[in-house]
């Protein structure tokens, strides 16, 4: 009777896939909502963005609940889970990411329900795309084989490419095209690297590759080291593109700015987290050999340089932006740098991977909240994008401004928020791995980052809009409100009681990455 336990092991994926199919059926068969004047339905949607938003959020939260119950039962206890390896690895790591991705995706769906409705982008394909992309992201986090890795990566990416271009103005098309072309190129790099890896080692599963790579340099080994090196560089470059690490970040600001804000949220949250998951799996599953993962002879110094460059470039350019959305895009680049710091630290420190996981969790809830608050600040025809748009909103709409401030403070890493403990964990891991310079650079960078986050607060509370400028009037939406409330609750909860999930994060981070 292992079939039911196998089914249970993949239940988060199954739930999301079935939900996506049901949602597509409901959307196709359902009647369009009647427009006010009886006839004109622009942008040929079904007019039911709000309902579909709630539906897809329910599906994703159900998937998250299944992942959570998988975690409670313990993937080790499932006899059927072993049969899925190496194509899909069911362990605490993938269950953890299942919960995190469903949370991020579900909150983005709620934001989408409110946003698309308000701004008249009545394109109901947004929600199935979001669900399929989340499915790809969850499969990516559990991929233990180059085959699953590539298919899952493409499933995730294709959904997001289309989501970026849903709004038909020039900027959105430019964003979608840029993201699609560069993303396709990065996918090709990953695939080329995967082919070379297979040629060099004769394996496509990460564990087998890891075992072959471990024999390099020993007598009788036939594994060509140069080929493995080139292959590793190609695979990791493709993944770093998805993470938006410098120098693979050029697409990020344009794609983030041109996309509808809920799609931006999804990109910043789910895509980045899943890419980090598979980066950890590849680096610590296939290239975890003592020499390959050591500071003197392996990949860590290269990744450390990229981490420092990512943090610094992201923070420096973010400070010069006039658009808050673009600032958040550059700040998400900087956050990728902090998380990469944790990845580098994980080569020597046992808490490195756990610190990355907690960082991503804190980053997820803070980012969803920040983008949600930005959505809430604008309304139809007057979307809030620049700092000027937010001027004086603290006095006129204190609740919105308070929520926005909370998330920005968390992103800046100020104590009593989840973001603070995320950064603290990463820096402690770096110190534990004896990478003191990196820890100091990270600390300096977080001061740099605080400048532009607090600048938003200054505009909200201490500036008045210029007399002629149109005043930002926050929209009203229950869905966006709920998403922000959930995110705020988690930010405060993990900010006050980080140890409440400390043991879980450690358990997820200490699972072997490939089998």
């Amino acid at each position: 009777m292992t079939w039911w336990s196998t089914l249970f092991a993949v239940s988060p994926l199954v739930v999301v896939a079935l939900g996506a199919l049901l949602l597509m059926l409901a959307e196709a068969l359902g009647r369009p909502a009647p427009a006010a004047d009886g006839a004109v339905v622009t942008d040929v949607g079904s007019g039911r963005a709000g309902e579909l938003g709630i539906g897809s959020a329910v599906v994703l939260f159900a998937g998250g609940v299944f992942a959570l119950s998988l975690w409670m039962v313990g993937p080790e206890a499932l006899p059927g889970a072993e049969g899925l390896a190496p194509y899909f690895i069911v362990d605490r790591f993938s269950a953890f990411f299942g919960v995190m991705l469903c949370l991020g995706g579900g909150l983005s769906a709620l934001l989408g329900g409110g946003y698309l409705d308000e701004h008249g982008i009545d394109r109901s394909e947004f929600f199935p795309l979001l669900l399929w992309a989340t499915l790809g992201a969850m499969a990516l986090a559990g991929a233990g084989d180059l085959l699953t890795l590539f298919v899952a990566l493409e499933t995730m990416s294709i959904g997001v490419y289309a989501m970026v271009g849903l709004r038909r103005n020039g900027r959105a098309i430019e964003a979608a095209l840029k993201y699609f072309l560069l993303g396709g190129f990065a996918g090709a790099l990953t695939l080329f690297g995967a082919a070379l890896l297979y040629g060099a080692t004769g394996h496509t599963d990460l564990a087998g590759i890891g075992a072959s790579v471990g024999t390099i340099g020993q007598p009788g080994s036939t594994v060509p080291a140069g080929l493995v090196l080139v292959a590793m560089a190609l695979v990791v470059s493709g993944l770093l593109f998805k993470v938006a690490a410098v120098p693979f970040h050029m697409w990020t600001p344009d794609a983030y700015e041109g996309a509808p804000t809920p799609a931006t949220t999804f990109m910043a949250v789910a895509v980045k987290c899943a890419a980090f998951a598979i980066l950890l799996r590849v680096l610590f599953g296939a290239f975890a050999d003592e020499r390959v993962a050591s500071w003197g002879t392996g990949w860590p110094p290269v990744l450390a340089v990229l981490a420092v460059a990512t943090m610094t470039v992201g923070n420096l350019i973010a400070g010069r932006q006039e658009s808050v959305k673009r600032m958040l895009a550059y700040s998400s680049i900087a956050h990728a740098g902090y998380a990469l710091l944790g990845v580098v630290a994980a080569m020597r420190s046992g808490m490195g991977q756990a610190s990355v996981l907690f960082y991503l969790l804190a980053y997820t809830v803070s980012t969803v909240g920040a983008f949600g608050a930005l959505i809430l600040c604008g309304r139809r025809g007057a979307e809030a994008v620049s700092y000027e748009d937010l001027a004086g909103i603290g006095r006129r709409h204190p609740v919105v401004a308070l929520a926005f401030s909370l998330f920005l403070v968390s992103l800046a890493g100020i104590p009593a928020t989840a973001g603070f403990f995320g950064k603290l964990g990463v820096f402690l891991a770096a110190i534990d791995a004896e990478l003191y310079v990196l820890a100091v650079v990270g600390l300096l960078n977080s001061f740099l980052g605080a400048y532009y986050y607090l600048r938003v607060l200054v505009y909200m509370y201490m500036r008045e809009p210029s007399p002629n400028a149109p005043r930002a009037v926050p929209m009203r939406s229950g869905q966006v409100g709920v998403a922000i409330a959930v995110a705020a609750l988690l930010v405060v909860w993990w900010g006050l009681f980080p140890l409440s999930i400390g043991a879980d994060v450690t358990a997820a981070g200490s699972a072997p990455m490939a089998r």
Partner: protein
Amino acid sequence: MILAGIVYFAVCALVVLLGAVGVVASRDPIRSAVSLLASILGVAGLYLKLSAEFLAAIQVIVYAGAVVVLFVFVIMLLGPDAGSRVEPSRARPSRVVGAVVAAAVALAAVLLLLPRDHGLTSFGEVPAGFGGIEAVGGHLFTRALLPFELATALLIAAVVGAIALSRGRGVIPKAPPPPVNPTARMFGGPVHPRDAGRPLGEEGMR
């Protein structure tokens, strides 16, 4: 025997590479499509050399047969002048830097691979039936079921995305569409059941 294998590989590889260069180098989209066809057929030949007969057949049927034909259809639909005639712009510093960096990376990769005198990993003798329909299908539907099903998710996402991006922005009109054109009714009889019982109107007699 071994020499024949090497010659076969070299010919296929040459066809693949020349086809690929032709795709990006030719200005005429039809020539690009045909070069792509050559490249795809070359890859199918390489699959044969790897004992993957089923994959080679699929490559020819799906890519050469369906995908390239689709490309040609689209090119024909858009017309031969659809491609924008963009004059190659002058070298900008960023392009020069990009080209230099790319060349340096490629050179480094080649240098890494060149000097060692090692063969690639030997995969040993292939078992009987390797690369046939049964072997591929058996693996796909048992061990690799999950990535296989994931490919369906990929295709659905791609289809939904394509629809979402191509579906026009428009207005659903209140009134039904105007009746079919009168000429069709005069010469071809009623083309819509709804119009079958209606006498020819004034516009039909004109």
